[in-house]
């Protein structure tokens, strides 16, 4: 597991806070003004020193030792075992806190645009507990970041908090993605409750050629859904939001987090989705991320994936038989019955993906999504064990 920010030594940093780390090929490509890039002078980057190159108006220099930086120019030295940063990444340099955060990872499988810390729900298993603070400054910040992201990035996730609380600011961020990253698939994680209010769904008609809304729905009944999101009236708003998105011709995914009370009614939820939202493009059934509020509610929420196989199988078979696409996220293969393996996706972001010692001997590890890095024994399925493909054949 790798952290996303770190303390770092730095000097003279006065330029932009967000910069792209430039290797020689990024300099050659010339996609960004020199002033928005920091030249990577570290030994690992292997670039030859060149006074002509260093004399260009770089925002700063990434170095191992301060002496490597040209005299009087801004520099940052990352601790050797801390944050992994390489050419093409975008970093945020904060001189006032002596911190460097990585905001974009070149080639990463799950780069995010963090829209806001605010949220109108308060889900019992929230992995990113909200804070009620004014953070509209993030709109401009994200627009700046989008400009630093590689144009061939395949996917970006806009998340929070509840991104639609940015209102028109969210539209601005999405439009900026459309202008700079028209080939990138954009996924927005939203509870959909706002689509009749501050951010009507029509606001988002076709600003980006490839965008999907991922909306959580936890039950076929308002009481359970409202309990899970700790917010009365949320079920009705989300249902209306889903129809508003459909009316605005938006692509929609429904996300279901597999906590204990939700699993109990999962087959009913699957039927509810099929009957009422047949226009849904994709349904993701997701294992719980054991962090944030989830840790405080472990007893109410935890169900071993080994104990949800019946409900999971019924729901997946029901939906896929009706031509609705289903995926299973965050569930290791050894916790799933084999017929469900084709639905399991390697969904855990690379920087928080982890395997257990038992996984060393597993033959399907390369196909398995593994576990969240912060998994603890009490959040670990009893059925975690190395899989030997030959055994499973013999059992036929």
């Amino acid at each position, binding site marked *: 597991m790798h952290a996303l920010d770190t303390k770092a030594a730095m000097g003279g940093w006065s330029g932009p806070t967000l910069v792209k780390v430039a290797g*020689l*090929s990024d300099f*050659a490509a*010339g*996609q*960004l003004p020199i002033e928005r890039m920091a030249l990577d002078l570290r030994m690992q980057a292997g*670039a030859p020193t060149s006074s002509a190159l260093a004399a260009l108006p770089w925002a700063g220099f990434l170095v191992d030792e301060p002496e490597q930086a040209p005299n009087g120019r801004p520099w940052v030295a990352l601790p050797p075992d801390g944050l992994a940063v390489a050419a093409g990444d975008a970093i945020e340099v904060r001189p006032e806190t002596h911190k460097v955060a990585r905001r974009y990872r070149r080639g990463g499988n799950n780069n995010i645009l963090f829209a806001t810390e605010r949220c109108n729900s308060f889900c019992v298993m929230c992995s990113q507990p909200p804070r009620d603070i004014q953070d509209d400054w993030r709109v401009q910040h994200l627009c700046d970041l989008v400009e630093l992201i590689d144009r061939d990035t*395949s996917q970006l996730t806009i998340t929070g908090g509840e991104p639609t609380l940015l209102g028109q600011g969210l539209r601005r961020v999405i439009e900026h993605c459309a202008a700079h990253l*028209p*080939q990138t698939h954009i996924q927005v994680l939203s509870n959909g409750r706002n689509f009749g209010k501050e951010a009507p769904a029509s606001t988002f008609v076709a600003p980006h050629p490839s965008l999907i809304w991922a909306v959580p729905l936890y039950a076929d009944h308002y009481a359970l859904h409202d309990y899970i999101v700790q917010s009365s009236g949320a079920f009705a708003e989300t249902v209306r939001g889903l129809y508003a998105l459909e009316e605005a011709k938006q692509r929609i995914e429904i996300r279901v987090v597999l906590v204990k009370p939700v699993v109990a009614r999962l087959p009913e939820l699957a039927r509810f989705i099929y009957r009422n939202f047949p226009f849904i493009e994709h349904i993701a059934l997701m294992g719980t991320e054991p962090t944030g509020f989830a840790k405080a509610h472990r007893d109410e929420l935890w169900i071993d994936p080994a104990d949800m196989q019946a409900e999971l199988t019924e729901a997946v078979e029901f939906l896929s038989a009706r031509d609705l696409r289903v995926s299973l996220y965050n569930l290791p293969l050894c916790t799933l019955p084999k017929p469900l393996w084709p639905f399991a996706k390697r969904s855990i972001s690379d920087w928080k993906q982890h395997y257990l010692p038992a996984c060393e001997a597993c033959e399907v590890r390369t196909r398995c999504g593994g576990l969240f890095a912060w998994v603890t024994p009490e959040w670990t399925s009893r059925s975690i064990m190395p899989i030997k493909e030959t055994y499973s054949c013999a059992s036929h």
Partner: protein
Amino acid sequence: MRKSLALTGAALAAAQGAAHSADRAATTAHLTDMAIRDADFTVTLAAPLNVNIHNMYASHASHSSHASHASHSSGSGGSYRAAPVYTPSYTPAYRPAPAPAPAPSTMPDLGPSVAPLVSPNATRATGDQLKMMIMRVQAALYSKGYDPGAIDGVMTSETKLALAKFQGAHGLPANSKMTTATLNALGVALGP
């Protein structure tokens, strides 16, 4: 465009299928449906870096002022669709009128970051621009394992040799010139 291709293919297949059983047509329809849905997830391959941009560096160290118009083929190896035809008489000031808003599946507008480096009327690079472009080419050569000597913005004999070697290895005329095809192959954009 991908959708239209999928549909055309499907129509042809269906015409053929009509001769067979209705079952077959149903299968074809199903496959077509899947192809159309897949189209939403396919990635459009990148266009070459430098499309419709006047290359004022290509004729550097050359007597022919038209050398820059000689090349418009892609050296990047990526296939692309609907590349605009490069008409030699264009200068960037008269770039073709923007096509109607691009449909999601066609080649994207490359946007402001590939706008011409200087005022669009300029056809000759200034000394500073030329030095910068040579540095970029040197950096690209270095990062691709060639040795252009120091990255100093001077077209030294070492740099020329490295450039010619690179061109030779990529099926380009080994003339040590910064042609558009060479820049595409090196991953060097003509702007900003």
